[in-house]
């Protein structure tokens, strides 16, 4: 992804109902409140032996941040702790305090992990705390990185899939969350973990058939993660996936994710697009062919659902690809379709469709010459 820095003062919080459902620890007080009224570590007697260290700024800094007193106080003590090398339960309290104020604080995460290891702390408790922090800070790299380190220690990936399913309810397309799921599956690669994965994807697509993250995950499960017991017949897998994606296209024809998946399966299995012509053709027409009695409906090639907006851009493109591959006289048909995309159905990509026409003419004249 990107090197994203968003300066947005109004950071939306997930709905409270979801937070509490996913993470029972959400109602626990922050470390800074745990000891009562005093917000500052400076005033707590049990920290009197630590020398707080202020932040160094020798020259005028670029984009100085106007820290709150509470943050300045906590990080002064954190720098003090790092200098002394202390690893103790109160360090866990302090790093939690810093992280709650700044979830991107790389060093606080790092030092917290080291301390957890040194103290041999119960990591299930830590994961429970992370359940809360991950939901709160879904877009922070460190939250996920820390979780990976922990699970590599506990070697208990099972509960993680449920946790991930819950956090996807908060943000169904969150990139970190999906990456974490792919990592859990690939890293532990345990048959029991994989066993419900297709059902899971199906349920995600039932909520939103346009969720590209779910489609991508399905491709990963079906084709990119090795062959598991029962999946040895690869042709059967391809047939199953083609049937699955056709059905989803029929429900919602104008869905780029499903069409990209269809192309992905065909490319992967090296099946020519022309084999799908019977299925795709009705989607590329301005309206459904009249007079097809329901009893002759071809189950292998479901028709677009009623009220679909036709023609479907992706289907027109697909038909043009079939004609282009056939070459010869069919190039004229391809060109007609590209023209209709450029001038009518998909004008934002006019330049692209005109480029496709120009390229196919080049190939043709090259072939003839």
């Amino acid at each position, binding site marked *: *992804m*990107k*090197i*994203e*820095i*968003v*300066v*947005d*003062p109004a950071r939306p919080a997930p709905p409270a109902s979801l937070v509490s459902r996913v993470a029972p620890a959400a109602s626990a007080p922050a470390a800074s409140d745990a000891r009562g009224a005093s917000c500052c570590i400076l005033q707590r007697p049990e920290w009197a032996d630590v020398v707080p*260290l202020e*932040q*160094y700024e020798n*020259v*005028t*800094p*670029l*984009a*100085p*941040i*106007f*820290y709150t007193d509470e*943050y300045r106080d906590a990080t002064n003590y954190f*720098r003090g702790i*790092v*200098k002394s090398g202390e690893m103790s339960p109160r360090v866990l309290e302090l790093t939690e305090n810093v992280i709650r*104020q*700044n*979830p*991107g*604080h*790389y*060093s606080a995460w790092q030092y917290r992990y080291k301390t957890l290891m040194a103290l041999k702390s119960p990591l299930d408790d830590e994961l429970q705390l992370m359940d809360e922090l991950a939901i709160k800070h879904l877009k922070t*790299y460190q939250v996920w*990185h820390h979780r990976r380190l922990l699970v590599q220690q506990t070697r208990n990936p099972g509960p993680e899939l449920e946790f991930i399913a819950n956090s996807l309810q908060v943000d169904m397309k969150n*990139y970190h969350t*999906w*990456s974490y799921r*792919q990592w859990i599956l690939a890293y532990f690669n345990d048959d029991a973990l994989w066993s419900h994965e297709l059902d899971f994807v199906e349920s995600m697509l039932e909520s939103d058939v*346009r*969720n*590209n*993250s779910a*489609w*991508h*995950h399905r*491709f*990963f499960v079906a*084709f990119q993660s090795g062959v598991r017991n029962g999946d040895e017949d690869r042709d059967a897998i391809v047939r199953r996936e083609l049937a699955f994606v056709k059905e989803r296209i029929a429900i919602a024809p104008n*869905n*780029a*994710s499903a069409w*990209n998946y269809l192309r*992905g399966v065909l490319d*992967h299995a090296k099946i020519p697009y022309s084999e799908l012509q019977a299925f795709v053709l009705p989607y590329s027409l301005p309206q459904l062919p009249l007079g097809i009695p329901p009893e002759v409906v071809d189950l292998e090639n479901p028709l677009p659902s009623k009220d679909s907006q036709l023609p479907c851009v992706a289907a027109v493109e697909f038909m043009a690809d079939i004609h282009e591959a056939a070459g010869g006289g069919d190039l004229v048909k391809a060109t007609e379709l590209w023209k209709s995309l450029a001038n009518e159905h998909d004008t*934002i*990509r*006019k*330049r*692209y469709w005109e*480029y496709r026409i120009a390229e196919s003419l080049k190939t043709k004249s090259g072939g003839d010459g």
Partner: protein
Amino acid sequence: MLPASLPPLSKGGHAAHCKRCLSGLPSSQVDIDPAKLALSFYCLGSLDVSGELEKKTKDWEREQWREWIWSQQTRGHHGTGFRASSYMTAKHSTEEHSGHDNPQIIMTYTALLSLSILRDNFSRLDRKGLLEFLRSCQNIDGSFSSEPLGGDSDLRTTFCAFAISTMLDDWSGMDVANALQFIYSCRTYEGGYGQSPFGEALGGTTYCALAALRLATKQLDPLSLQDRQKTVRWLVQNQAYNGGFSGRTNKDADACYCFWCGASLHVLDAGDLVDNAAMSSFIASCQFKYGGIAKIPGEHPDPYHTYLSLAAVALLPPNSSEGASWALCPLDPLLNATYQTSSWARAHIPAPKVDDDALGDAGI
């Protein structure tokens, strides 16, 4: 329908937004600390690409900024690079290095570009240490960790390692073949590249992959014909009907992806397939009335979206009839800086050539 002509691009307002951020951020932005140098780059880059740097900043300010950036150059246990800011450095510290104040690879890339924008002469750059740093960040699978021996690794860090090697004009800091292998392993069935192997195709990391491939191989086209067609198709498909680009299939447009996808197409010599007018119109609608550009219309602006929107316009400008406000400095899509800045980087960052005769004359 798109308007017949665009509202002006408020270059002065965007420069003012970035200048304000450089002079200070509210406490709510505390999570910028571990990425401060990147933020600085987006601010300085906005001033640079809009041609406002000299107008909006004074010599002494630029001098101070150079000093501050140099003060982030850190020698760690595994080489030298730039840390994000001094947020982990204690006052009056006598220790050379705490082990928790590490240089970071993305910050190092943005520091080198920021110093080039500020026309530094790089006499203080520890080049040998920088190569050592890169080597210690590379993992067995060819990827790069954000810091030596740990941290997250993905295509962003890979791109930064390639850009740093390009600027140094020295590739001895990495195993290039292994690094390329990692890039290929991030390719997806859609034609874009995921953040790491198995990840969903994403605009930002697709740019990182394509720019890195082109920097390393120097070939006009680093992909096979079929792969190229598929990637171009996916990138073009990401242009939404409102003119903006989305970063993933079926997501809403976001100003930053105008750069990530637009520059990716440019890297593949297919920039002319973008509908520039529609893209500019989307970016115009993301302008905040008091300066700065937001990810979508109606949101608050930030330097990241401001810079990337300006960079996208510089690379894929609308018709010249839109007037002078839309004219920006030409951009080098591979290093992601104006050509003037990237030429400066390529001229001043490599180690000075040792002249044998001169050494002989000096009796060395």
